[in-house]
C-alpha cells in the first residue's frame, strides 16, 4: 500500500513538476536559509582566550547562584593567592598562576586606540604570561610600578596608556611574544578588582586534557578546589570567553534564530497555500483515484508522499546552497558587529542534515490541511465536468475571522487600562490579531474595497472586465491579496513600532539628564578617575554587587554615591557604610529600609550593609566602590562648569548623546528589521507568484474566449496585469489600514509610558518598497502563463 503511494507519488511529481514548483521553491529557500543560518550559528562557538593557550586546566570562582550567566563572583587577591599556592604544589602541576586583569588602553596622540570592550581585560600580571606560553623576546620582566612588558615595543621605550586612574606613561622593560600589557604581579593585584581565573600548567604538557593525558591531575585539582571554585578542563575552558565577545555572538545568534524561525514559518505558509490550490485544481484526478479504489487514507498518503519527495529534493539542493552562501556572510556579520573579529565559517554537516530534516517536517506540516481536505473528495467528483468553485468563505474563516477581530479590537481598547509595562506588548498582540482577522475575512472585505478602488475606470471595457472578474473570482483575488495584506501589515507594524519606540526612548532618556553638556567616553569603555576630576567633579564609578538577603542572591549594577542616599534629604553622607536599593531589587530580595544584607563586591570581599533607603538606583558610598572595585570606570559626567579636554573623553550636548545612544541601538534593530522584512517579503512574493501562476494557467480557456471575442494579446495582458495590481493594491491598502489603526493604539501606549506626546511614525518608504516588490513579482507570475500560450 505504501509502495503504491510512493510509486504513484513519484510518477505525479515527475510528470507534473510545475504544479509543485511553488512547494519546491519555498522549501529550497527555507532549507537554504536554515542551513546557512545554522552553519553560521554552529561555526560561532565560544573559545577560551588565546592567552590561556598553554593552560589546560583553568579554575574559576564558584557560581554566585543568581541564575544569571553574566553574574560572576571574584576571589579576593588573598583567596586566589592561597588557592594558587595549594594547587601549585599538587603532583603533576608545574604552576598555578592567578590572572588578575584590569583595564589598559594605549593612547596615541591623546586618543584611546583599539577595541574598548577588549581593553577591559588587557592588563595582566607578568606571571600570567606563562599561561599563554608568551615569553620575553627581549629585555627583562617588569618589577615595579610604571614598568610594563608588551609586544611590539623595544625595552627602554615609553608608552602612553589609559587606565581606570587616568593617563599614565609606562616604561617598557621587555618585549613579549603575545598580546596584552604585563605589569609586575603586585601592581596587577593592586589595579585589578579581584581575581576571576587561576590557570594551571601541567607537566603532561599543554595538549587537550580529557583524552587520557592529565586526567589524574584534573581529578586531584578538583579534589583540592572543592567548593572554592569550578575546575574547567577541555571544552569547558571555552566558557571563559570574554563577555564582550559572547555578547557579540549572542546578537548574531538572535538574528540567525529569527531567520530560522521566520524561514520555517513562511515555508509552512507557502507550502500549505500551494498544496491547497493544487488539490483544488486536481479534484477530478483525486476523485478518480477514490473511484477506482483509493481509500481516503491512501489519497492523504499520496499527497504526503508527493510533498515529501519534493521537499527532500528541494532540501538536498537547498542545504548545500545555503552552506555555500554562509561563508560569504561571515565578513558582513563581523563588520556589523554580529560576530566577533576572526570569525570563520566551518563545515557543519549537522546543520545541513538538520535543515533538510526541518524542510521535510515543515513541508509535511504545510500539506497536512490540504491532504485532509483532499481525502474527503467524494469519488463522484471524478465524473463532474467542472468542480464547482469552492466558496471563498469557509465556515472556519467565518468563525476564526470575527473572533480574531473582536479579540484584537478588545485588546486594543483595553490597552489604556493595562499596567504600563504591558501596554506595548498588548498593542503588538492586538495588531497581530487584527491582521490575522483581516486576512481571514479578506474575501468579504475585498468586494467593497475593489468597488471603491476600481471606481474611476468603471466605464472602460478593460475596467469593466477587471472589476467584474475580480468580484466573481473573489477566492482567487483573496489568495493574492491575503499574503500581501499580511506582509505589508507586518512591515508597517514592525517598522512603525520600532520608529515610534525610538522616538519614545529618546524622550525618555533625555528626561534623565538636565539640559546641558555631558562628558562621555571616547573610544573607551568608561571615563577614568582623572578625566572626571579634571572637570572638578567627583568620580562616581559604576560597579556590580552581589547582594544576598534571606537566602536569595542577585547581581545588580550599582553606582558610587557622593552625597548620601538620593532623595532622602539626609544631606551629605554621614560617613558610615550603607546601601540604597532600587525598587526592583528590594522587591526581588524582599528587603526594606533598615534590613541588613550581605554584599559581595567586585573584588570578592563580603560585608554586611544596612539598607538605608529604597530609591531609584542601587548605590553604595563612593569610597567603598573605589576600595572594592579599583578598576571601575565612570559612565558619564554631567558638566556644570567649563569643560576641560581629557584623553578618552569627549563633550556632547545631552540631546546629541541620547540620539547617538538611540541610533547605536537603532542600527542593530534596523538591521534585524531589514533582514526579517526582506525574508517575509521574499516569501510573500513566492506565495503570490505561485498562486497567480497556477490560477492564471487554469484560466487559459477564459482568455481564449476573450481573444475570440476580439481582444488582442496586449489587451489580455493589460487585463491580467490590471487584475493583479488591483489585488495587490487591495491587500496593501487593507494591511496598511489595519496596521495604522494598531499603531495608533501602540503610540498612545508609548506616550503614556513616557508621559509625553509622541508623533506617530508610519514608515512609508519601506511600505512602498514592500508593496512594489509584491506587485512586481505578482505581475510577472500572472503574465507568464498568458504569454506562454502565445
Amino acid at each position, binding site marked *: 500500500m505504501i509502495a*503504491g503511494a510512493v*510509486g*504513484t507519488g513519484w*510518477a505525479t511529481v515527475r*510528470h*507534473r513538476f510545475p504544479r509543485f514548483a511553488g512547494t519546491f521553491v519555498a522549501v529550497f529557500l527555507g532549507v537554504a536559509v536554515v542551513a546557512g543560518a545554522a552553519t553560521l550559528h554552529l561555526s560561532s562557538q565560544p573559545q577560551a582566550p588565546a592567552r590561556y593557550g598553554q593552560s589546560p586546566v583553568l579554575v574559576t570562582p564558584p557560581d554566585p547562584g543568581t541564575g544569571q550567566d553574566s553574574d560572576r563572583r571574584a576571589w579576593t587577591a588573598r583567596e586566589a593567592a592561597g588557592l594558587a599556592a595549594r594547587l601549585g604544589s599538587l603532583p603533576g602541576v608545574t604552576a598555578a598562576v592567578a590572572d588578575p586583569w584590569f583595564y589598559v588602553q594605549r593612547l596615541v596622540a591623546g586618543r584611546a586606540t583599539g577595541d574598548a570592550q577588549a581593553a577591559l581585560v588587557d592588563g595582566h600580571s607578568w606571571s600570567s604570561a606563562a599561561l599563554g606560553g608568551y615569553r620575553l623576546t627581549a629585555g627583562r620582566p617588569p618589577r615595579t610600578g610604571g614598568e610594563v612588558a608588551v609586544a611590539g615595543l623595544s625595552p627602554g621605550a615609553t608608552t602612553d596608556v589609559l587606565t581606570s586612574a587616568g593617563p599614565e606613561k609606562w616604561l617598557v622593560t621587555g618585549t613579549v611574544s603575545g598580546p596584552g600589557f604585563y605589569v609586575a604581579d603586585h601592581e596587577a593585584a593592586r589595579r585589578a578588582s579581584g581575581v576571576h581565573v587561576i590557570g594551571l600548567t601541567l607537566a603532561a604538557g599543554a595538549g587537550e586534557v580529557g583524552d587520557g593525558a592529565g586526567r589524574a591531575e584534573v581529578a586531584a585539582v578538583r579534589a583540592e578546589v572543592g567548593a572554592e571554585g569550578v575546575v574547567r578542563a577541555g571544552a569547558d575552558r571555552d566558557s571563559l570567553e570574554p563577555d564582550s565577545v559572547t555578547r557579540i555572538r549572542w546578537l548574531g545568534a538572535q538574528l540567525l534564530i529569527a531567520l530560522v524561525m521566520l524561514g520555517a514559518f513562511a515555508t509552512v505558509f507557502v507550502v500549505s497555500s500551494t498544496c491547497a490550490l493544487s488539490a483544488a485544481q486536481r479534484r477530478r484526478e483525486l476523485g478518480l483515484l477514490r473511484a477506482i479504489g483509493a481509500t481516503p487514507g491512501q489519497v492523504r498518503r499520496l499527497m504526503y508522499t508527493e510533498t515529501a519527495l519534493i521537499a527532500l529534493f528541494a532540501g538536498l539542493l537547498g542545504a548545500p546552497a545555503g552552506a555555500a552562501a554562509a561563508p560569504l556572510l561571515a565578513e558582513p556579520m563581523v563588520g556589523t558587529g554580529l560576530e566577533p573579529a576572526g570569525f570563520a565559517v566551518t563545515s557543519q554537516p549537522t546543520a545541513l542534515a538538520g535543515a533538510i530534516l526541518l524542510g521535510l517536517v515543515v513541508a509535511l506540516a504545510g500539506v497536512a490541511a490540504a491532504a485532509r481536505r483532499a481525502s474527503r473528495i467524494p469519488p463522484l467528483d471524478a465524473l463532474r465536468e467542472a468542480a464547482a468553485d469552492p466558496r471563498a468563505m469557509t465556515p472556519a474563516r467565518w468563525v476564526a475571522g470575527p473572533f480574531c477581530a473582536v479579540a484584537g479590537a478588545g485588546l486594543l481598547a483595553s490597552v489604556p487600562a493595562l499596567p504600563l509595562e504591558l501596554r506595548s506588548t498588548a498593542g503588538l498582540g492586538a495588531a497581530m490579531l487584527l491582521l490575522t482577522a483581516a486576512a481571514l475575512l479578506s474575501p468579504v472585505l475585498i468586494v467593497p474595497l475593489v468597488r471603491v478602488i476600481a471606481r474611476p475606470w468603471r466605464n472602460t471595457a478593460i475596467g469593466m472586465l477587471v472589476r467584474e472578474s475580480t468580484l466573481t473570482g473573489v477566492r482567487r483575488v483573496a489568495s493574492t491579496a491575503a499574503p500581501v495584506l499580511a506582509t505589508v501589515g507586518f512591515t508597517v507594524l514592525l517598522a512603525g513600532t520600532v520608529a515610534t519606540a525610538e522616538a519614545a526612548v529618546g524622550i525618555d532618556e533625555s528626561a534623565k539628564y538636565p539640559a546641558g553638556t555631558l562628558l562621555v567616553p571616547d573610544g573607551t569603555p568608561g571615563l577614568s578617575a582623572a578625566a572626571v576630576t579634571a572637570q572638578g567633579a567627583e568620580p562616581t564609578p559604576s560597579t556590580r554587587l552581589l547582594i544576598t538577603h534571606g537566602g536569595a542572591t542577585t547581581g545588580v549594577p550599582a553606582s558610587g554615591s557622593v552625597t548620601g542616599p538620593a532623595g532622602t534629604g539626609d544631606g551629605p553622607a554621614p560617613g558610615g557604610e550603607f546601601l540604597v536599593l532600587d525598587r526592583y531589587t528590594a522587591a526581588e530580595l524582599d528587603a526594606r529600609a533598615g534590613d541588613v544584607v550581605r554584599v559581595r563586591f567586585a573584588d570578592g570581599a563580603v560585608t554586611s550593609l544596612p539598607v538605608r533607603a529604597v530609591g531609584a538606583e542601587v548605590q553604595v558610598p563612593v569610597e567603598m566602590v573605589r576600595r572594592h572595585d579599583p578598576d571601575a570606570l565612570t559612565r558619564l559626567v554631567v558638566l556644570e562648569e567649563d569643560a576641560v579636554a581629557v584623553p578618552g573623553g569627549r563633550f556632547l550636548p545631552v540631546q546629541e548623546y541620547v540620539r547617538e545612544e538611540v541610533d547605536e541601538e537603532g542600527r542593530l534593530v534596523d538591521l534585524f528589521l531589514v533582514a526579517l522584512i526582506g525574508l517575509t517579503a521574499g516569501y510573500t512574493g513566492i506565495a503570490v507568484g505561485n498562486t497567480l501562476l497556477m490560477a492564471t494557467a487554469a484560466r487559459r480557456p477564459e482568455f481564449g474566449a476573450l481573444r475570440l471575442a476580439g481582444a488582442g494579446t496586449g489587451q489580455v495582458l493589460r487585463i491580467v496585469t490590471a487584475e493583479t495590481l488591483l489585488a495587490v493594491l487591495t491587500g496593501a491598502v487593507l494591511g496598511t489600514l489595519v496596521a495604522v489603526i494598531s499603531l495608533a493604539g501602540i503610540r498612545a501606549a508609548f506616550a503614556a509610558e513616557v508621559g509625553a506626546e509622541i508623533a506617530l511614525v508610519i514608515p512609508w518608504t519601506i511600505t512602498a518598497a514592500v508593496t512594489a516588490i509584491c506587485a512586481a513579482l505578482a505581475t510577472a507570475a500572472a503574465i507568464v502563463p498568458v504569454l506562454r500560450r502565445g
Partner: protein
Amino acid sequence: MTALDRVDARFEPGTFTAVMGPSGSGKSTLLHCAAGLDRASGGEVIIDGVPVGGLSERALTRLRRARVGFVFQAFNLVPALTAAQNVALPLRLAGRRPHRGEVAAVLAEVGLEGRERHRPSELSGGQQQRVAIARALVARPAVLFADEPTGALDATAGAGVLRLLREAVDRHRQTILMVTHDPLAAATADRVLFLADGRVVDELPGSAGAERIALHTARLEATKTVSAAVRTDGSGAAVTR
C-alpha cells in the same frame, strides 16, 4: 427532489445489462448507487452479497476496489501514469504487487500490447478507453459499471470498446451494467432496461436490435413517482425493491 424511485432490479452474474432513458431519468444515479459511489437515501444496495448501506467510507472503498470496476465517459486515467501503471493502480492500491505479465496480459486482451509505457496523452480516445477497461477488469471484479463508455468516442472506436465489453461477458462471464443513450451500444447488451422519471418502465432483450430500442426510447414518457429501493445480491448484482 427524488432522482430514483422504487427501482427494483437484479443483475445476474455473467450478464450484460444496458440502462437507457432520457436525460434526468435517473440512469446515472442508478449506476452510482448500484456501484457504491453514491449512497441511496432509502432502500438497499447489495453488491456480490454485501449490503452497502452500513459500510464505512473505508470499507466501501475496499469493497469497490475488490468487487467493482468502473469505466467512465471520459477522464478515466491518471495523466501522470503510463498505461501499465494505470492498469496496475487498483492492485497497488489494494496493497498487491501485480504478477509478472499480469498487467501486460490484460493490456494485450484489450489489444494494446506494446503500449504499456505510453502515457494517456500519447494514446487516442479509444485506446484510453481500452486502458480504462483493462484497469476495470484487472482485479477480476464481480461487476463492471460503465457510464456512457462510448459517449466521447467516434463510431469506430466506440464499436471497438463495445466489442471488448461483449467479449468480457462471453469469455469470462463478467457481469456488466452499462448506462448509455446510444441504441447501438445498448443493442450489444443481453437486456436493456428503460428508465423514466426514476422508475424502470420497460425492458427489452438486446437482441431486439438498435432500431427497436431507439423507437422505444423515443416513446418513453414520464410516469408517476414512487419511493425507490436499490438492491443487489449474492449471485451478481441486482437492484431490487
